[in-house]
């Protein structure tokens, strides 16, 4: 193997990791505030289809991305109203959001099957993008790839070094204490849920505008669920989410390359199982391994909150 074969492989790993990173960093913030939103898959699909429809309709990918963020937030808002205001079961509501998202996105998308869209443009940074190897690897991606990494940086910094981040973590660790010292638990959770929706919307936009620039029904193919697993894998730490997303991107691409090389004689579908099997194995290892007990799930994760009035 030389650099000419490894480089395109690395580029595809980055592409495969980006939607996972976007969706899981959003879910991480949601879960840090103590809310378990299992509707990531649904929010991603909403983002993907709205991004595509808007881009086709207006000819502007930028508008498509903005619309995807709004679509992700709108679906997250439905989840928020149900679980935070009406205190519905978070697990059931998340499942409902996914079922709804799958249905609504294929309804909206039915007119867009087979419609072409121009792939999201790569940013060209004068001089830097032309450097050998480093150029395409670091400076030759589209805006969402950088956004994913930038959001991860921002979230890591926000959670660790800002007052608002401290409040958010407090709300997730002990909602009653946070409430009793005067923080608005429900409001903080709404913000976190909406941020999760925004990121899932972006993840969807990346899929339909860049990864496979077209609309296919159910095109997230379980990535929303893998993103949920990644948050647990990362023990709710932003940097590990980044690492985890890239490892999973690597697994996805590895199976594609093995299929492409055709030398191993295994049906394509068996190779396609790899990311899902890897998720199960990873979840098992982190639940059973020496890390057990130090998983650091927010203490209030999944529990409804209603202040005693």
């Amino acid at each position, binding site marked *: 193997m030389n650099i000419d074969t490894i480089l395109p492989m690395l580029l595809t790993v980055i592409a495969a990791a980006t939607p996972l990173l976007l969706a899981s960093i959003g879910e991480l913030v949601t879960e840090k505030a103590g809310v378990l939103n299992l509707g990531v898959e649904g929010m991603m699909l909403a983002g993907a289809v709205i991004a595509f429809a808007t881009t086709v309709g207006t000819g502007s990918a930028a508008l498509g991305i903005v619309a995807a963020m709004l679509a992700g937030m709108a679906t997250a808002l439905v989840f928020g109203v149900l679980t935070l205001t*009406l205190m*519905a079961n978070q697990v059931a509501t998340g499942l409902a959001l996914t079922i*709804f*998202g799958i249905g609504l996105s294929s309804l909206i998308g039915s007119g867009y099957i087979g419609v072409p869209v121009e792939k999201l443009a790569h940013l060209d940074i004068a001089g830097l993008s032309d450097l050998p190897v480093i150029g395409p690897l670091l400076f030759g991606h589209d805006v969402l790839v950088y956004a994913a990494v930038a959001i991860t940086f921002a979230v890591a910094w926000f959670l660790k070094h800002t007052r608002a981040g401290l409040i958010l973590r407090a709300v997730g660790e002990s909602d009653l204490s946070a409430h009793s010292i005067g923080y608005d638990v429900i409001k903080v959770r709404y913000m976190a849920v909406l941020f999760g929706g925004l990121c899932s919307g972006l993840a969807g936009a990346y899929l339909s505008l860049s990864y496979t620039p077209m609309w296919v029904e159910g095109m997230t193919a379980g990535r929303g669920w893998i993103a949920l697993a990644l948050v647990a894998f990362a023990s709710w730490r932003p940097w590990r989410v980044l690492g985890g997303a890239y490892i999973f991107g690597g697994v996805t691409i590895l199976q594609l390359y093995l299929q492409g090389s055709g030398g191993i004689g295994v*049906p394509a579908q068996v190779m396609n*199982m790899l990311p899902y099997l890897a998720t199960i194995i990873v979840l*098992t290892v982190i639940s059973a391994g020496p890390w057990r007990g130090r998983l650091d799930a927010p203490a209030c994760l999944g529990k409804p909150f209603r202040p005693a009035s």
Partner: protein
Amino acid sequence: MAYKIEARRQISTRMLYLTPFIAVAATVAAGFFLFVALGVDPVETLYYFFISPLETKNGLAELGVKAAPLIMIAVGLALGYRANIWNIGAEGQLTMGALCGGAVALAFWEQGGFYILPLMALAGMAGGAAWAAIPAFLKTRFNVNEILTSLMLTYVATLFLAVMVFGPLKDPQGYNFPQSRLFSDSALLPIIWEETRLHLGFVVALAVAVAGWVLLSRSIIGFQIRTLGSAPAAARYAGFDRTRLTWFCLLLTGALAGLAGTFEVAGPVGQLVPNVSPGYGFTAIIVAFLGRLHPLGIIASGFLMALSYLGGENAQITVGLPQAVTGVFQGLLLFFLLASDFLVRYRVRRVKLLLEGV
């Protein structure tokens, strides 16, 4: 005047049974606006969706055909959900059941015998249960979240079925289409209503619901399930074995989903194809909730969700709406149900503000 939300001292039983009707009414209302937004005549479309499927013999029979797997799977899921065991991979368990039951049918291809169908049913239940055993093992042994593992296994099962129908189980005379041979007659479920597709599985599904009700309300294990879900601390104090109950709920659901899968391929489908179910395993989750996690309620909600499939097909043929509208209806229904459940646990009261009197 202002409104105040008060927690009820006890959950309101009246509201518990009223909320599914509120949710259905709200869904129909939302459907009205959805159809307006889609540019079709809302009244006409609602008629095609909810009423016209029930006007023919064939429509009624199809209602039973589609309700059967939903009821069967939802009864199992409801037992688990009562105990806070979140199996959401019934679709995968159904797929493995269809595959195992179907493999038996193909193994005995062109042979007659009364034993073939029971053998298929057993294989299907074993296949579904084995698939559910994986999350059960991982949950009880390593404390791995069963939501994620059961769902991941659904994708694996779908791909595995594809491997089989593209490969070893492909029809040798099938012009390379990814499907198996058509099952021979002794591997097909008997029809219980002439000139329709309504098969024996429908009766079995109703029996499963009744058995589930007896199990839940009259047996010790049913009591343990209910206690584990509603009062985990009490269950621990009483020494109920959480591990054993987790295994029980998951294996039972897996076996029922596997049986439903076998009935699909031995009933309406008649062969193995890459997609044996239009998402029955996921829709059954809604059926379970809408039926209030109660086996008899599930019979009613199973019929309603079966109607949503029929209505979707009907609206596709008559008004040209995409089939996906079914999923939107199903999602909306669950949203409205979860939202109106608020009324079960809380009451909204009008209160006079102190300031108003001043």
